[in-house]
């Protein structure tokens, strides 16, 4: 590794971190405008054309707010927890292949680090992410914050298992832990077909893992004021807010990488080959890189739209419903997915199409059966309200 390589690596890191924060800023605008549309409102449209400068205005406002530290907070832990929250949200992007722009030396400009255990890295970093919330809740020395922190850790522990097992299905399909290889293996067919069950479990568990509506009990305003970040103000609050959104977009990016073919789309190779033939390698690689990056971003944006849609549609679940869903539904489903994937791939190793169709049919069948069994029949729990 020469000195130039190190400089290039550092520049790549900075660009990636800035891109992630930029995506966060405009995702908030995207979400607010979209939510407003879905609720028959207009949304922020005053700052700049169509509200385009709104994120900058928000950031400026947060910078100039007064920064308060509670008197009885555990000062050091209180100060370190926003960092605990934001760092995992940013470093998670390192192993996600954002596209395919060959640098001519067997590398890829659009993937920061190609680790051969990339998937495990992603899971490890996601699981660290909860420390920020749990520690912030404890250090604030506030009952509501504390409850938010406890809820967060319980929720994340519960859903991490289902998430990891759902990811394992995709790993078994590709027979590799490397993110780049998993994307390469999806040239013929996206993983969402043979791993349909895994995809559904992953999307639900990922939503719960980033504590987002309808699983946002961590910051249920009606019960907990602001949840774990009640005592945080100014930029510290902004860091929590940012980590939440960056993690959400990162989870969508992981879902795209694992199940929706990553940066691939039909006809990409033909396009790149044509460009290479016409204009030479440099332009050809650039076309390949930009097209794949565009496809990846488009897919991430589609999933992000779905997240906003879900937030606008579904009410928050109750805590016992949350735990029931995690332990009694998603965990058995993801285990079933692992079993089905293993059996199919061992019995029919040479016919990927048959395996995929069988996987799709069995997965859909299991999902429908679960939905039929779990359908709310007669009322089991009676909610008693206080009268008088």
């Amino acid at each position: 590794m020469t000195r130039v390589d190190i400089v290039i690596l550092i520049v790549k890191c900075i660009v990636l971190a800035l891109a992630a924060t930029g995506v966060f800023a405009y995702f908030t605008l995207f979400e607010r405008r979209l939510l407003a549309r879905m609720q028959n409102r207009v949304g922020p449209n005053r700052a700049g054309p169509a509200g385009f400068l709104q994120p900058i205005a928000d950031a400026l406002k947060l910078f100039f707010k007064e920064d308060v530290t509670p008197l009885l907070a555990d000062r050091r832990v209180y100060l370190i927890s926003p960092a605990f929250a934001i760092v995992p949200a940013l470093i998670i992007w390192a192993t996600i292949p954002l596209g395919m722009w060959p640098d001519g030396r067997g590398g890829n400009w659009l993937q920061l680090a190609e680790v051969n255990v990339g998937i495990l890295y992603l899971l490890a970093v996601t699981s660290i992410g909860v420390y920020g919330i749990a520690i912030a809740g404890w250090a604030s020395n506030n009952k509501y914050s504390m409850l938010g922190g406890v809820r967060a850790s319980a929720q994340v522990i519960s859903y991490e298992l289902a998430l990891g097992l759902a990811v394992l299905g995709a790993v078994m399909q590709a027979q590799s832990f490397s993110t780049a290889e998993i994307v390469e293996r999806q040239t013929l067919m996206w993983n969402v077909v043979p791993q349909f069950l895994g995809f559904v479990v992953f999307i639900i568990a990922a939503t719960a893992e980033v504590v987002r509506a309808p699983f946002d009990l961590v910051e249920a305003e009606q019960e907990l004021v602001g949840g774990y970040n009640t005592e945080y103000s100014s930029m510290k609050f902004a860091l929590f807010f940012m980590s939440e959104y960056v993690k959400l977009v990162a989870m969508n990016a992981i879902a795209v990488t694992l199940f929706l073919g990553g940066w691939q789309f039909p006809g990409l190779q033909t396009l790149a080959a044509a460009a290479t033939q016409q204009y030479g390698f440099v332009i050809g690689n650039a076309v390949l890189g930009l097209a794949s990056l565009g496809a990846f971003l488009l897919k991430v944006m589609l999933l992000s739209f779905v997240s906003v849609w879900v937030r606008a549609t579904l009410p928050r679940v109750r805590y016992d419903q949350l735990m029931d869903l995690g332990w009694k539904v998603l965990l058995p489903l993801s285990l079933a997915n692992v079993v089905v994937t293993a059996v199919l791939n061992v019995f029919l190793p040479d016919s990927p199409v048959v395996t995929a169709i069988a996987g799709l049919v069995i997965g859909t069948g299991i999902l429908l059966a679960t939905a039929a069994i779990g359908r709310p029949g007669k009322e089991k729990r009676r909610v008693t309200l206080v009268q008088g």
Partner: protein
Amino acid sequence: MNTFITILFVVFAVYILVAAIMTVTVKNIVHAALWLISSFFTVGALYLLMEAEFIGVAQVLIYVGAVSILILFAIMLTRDLEGTQNRQMTPRWWIALIVPAALFGLLITPTVLTYQWQLPPPAPAGQSTPIAGAAQIGTAFVREYLLPFQVASVLLTVALIGAVVIAFEERERRRYVPTLAEKVRQQQRVRRPDPAASAMQSSETAGSET
């Protein structure tokens, strides 16, 4: 590069030891948990330094991501423990220091002096020796080391069943926890049949006020 790696190793190793010592000496139990987590994390970094990527990431995933968050969760749920400033050092702390140190020295000295270290020869420049990946580790687990693997899982199952048995009280001994509505109703039922007593009580309070 080699000296750089050595320096990193020393830094990590010293940090692990310092964090471990802080874990057992710090008074606040949440701080102790945080020191423990940082120690686990640095152990993961040490594995990465040895280019054992799988084990390094697995260390972070299991110890930092799962075990420690459970520890933290348990501490946060037991309100009484946290914040109590227990005394960490008894007057006889030096005995506790000497005995383990002597035992450790007794065990480590013969090993260091007599063991024939079979270090693998350094890889030729430009080539790296193949490192056991996830697939090899998995194969080793279900072939060579199947028995220890199974024994470990049986142990974990036993622990799990034990935890469930301890946590589950018998049905008769379980205390009925009334809801808020039932409590309110109960209080009303207690109050209602004896209006005279409550009237007397109110007159009493009125009397004491004057």
